[in-house]
């Protein structure tokens, strides 16, 4: 399955057929630091993603002079 990462934008391939939380763990991403977007919907970490899926992991953190 395809995973879109941001800042900078890039795409990687990982194994599907498992839960979002397992993908996040493999990528060393804390679940609360990204929105998980499939199509035009948000999905939770317990959802299963399949080999043909594309998900975007959109970071939620902003910083600097706030």
């Amino acid at each position, binding site marked *: 399955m395809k995973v879109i990462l*941001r*800042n900078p934008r890039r795409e990687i391939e990982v194994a599907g057929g498992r839960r979002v939380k397992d993908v996040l763990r493999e990528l060393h991403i804390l*679940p609360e630091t990204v929105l998980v977007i499939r199509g035009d919907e948000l999905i939770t970490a317990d959802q299963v993603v399949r080999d043909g899926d594309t998900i975007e992991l959109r970071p*939620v953190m*902003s910083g*600097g002079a706030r």
Partner: protein
Amino acid sequence: MKCRKCGGTAVLELRRHNAAFCAPDFLDFFRNQVREAVRKYRMLDKDEHVLVAVSGGKDSLALWDVLLDEGYRTTGLYLDLGIFDYSVESRRKCEAFAAGRGVPLIVASVAEEVGGPVPVIKEVTRRPPCSGCGLSKRYLMNRVALDRGIGVVATGHNLDDEAATLFGSIAHWQTDALARQSPALPSTHAKLVRRVKPLYRLSELETSAYAFLRRIDYIVEECPFAKGATSIAHKEILNRMEDASPGAKHNFLFGFLEKARAAFERTEAVELRECARCGQVTTGTICAFCKLADQVKRTL
């Protein structure tokens, strides 16, 4: 995962609340948190004009969206920092948002006001870019509000921003900063407008989810100068704490506000006067903004 309210499919899990929500119920939750923030700190009157500081990012556009939804009379303020393509794109997002909702947007340019954009300020001052940027933002937000006769500025600071600021202040025991940290800063001088942070009860995950679910077109790319910023490092530390113990950030910030902040409030009032150059409020003779502008203009 099921929505706590309706039992439908959840789109977002909020571990610190031990809950998950579907999209409509999450949006309700979000609006209720903003209402509670406004009520608890008496941030805004229903009929007053609010200047909403917008950057094109998720927080400030979510804030503007929710305030419009709640029926507030608002004007947006975008400060063009002159940070390469990032500023071009973020300005475009703000203008599109304002046009789409038919609401006014003021654009002010840091380069025009200071004499150079943020990248130049960084070079001239040889200080971290966030330093001159933050100073310029605070000054210009206040001045634009005053010029327009608007008594309050609302900013998109969220729970993570506030927790990270608190963490930084405690790490260095900056007691002045601890005294000033609040979701609502009152006017302490005729030329200082109130500043409020209606999103302080909501995490970055929640403001991002709100912006996404409301189909707000915000800039996802980060400010190029934010990389390596101390505030980001503090957020990463707090995120690891949150992962190990959901609610840690909330408890850290809310515990300070409810139990500790009063201990840092000043017993002696700081004497405020008007800058001899621009007339804005300062504790010295010339305000920090005018000193910065002088430094930039001298160097260029």
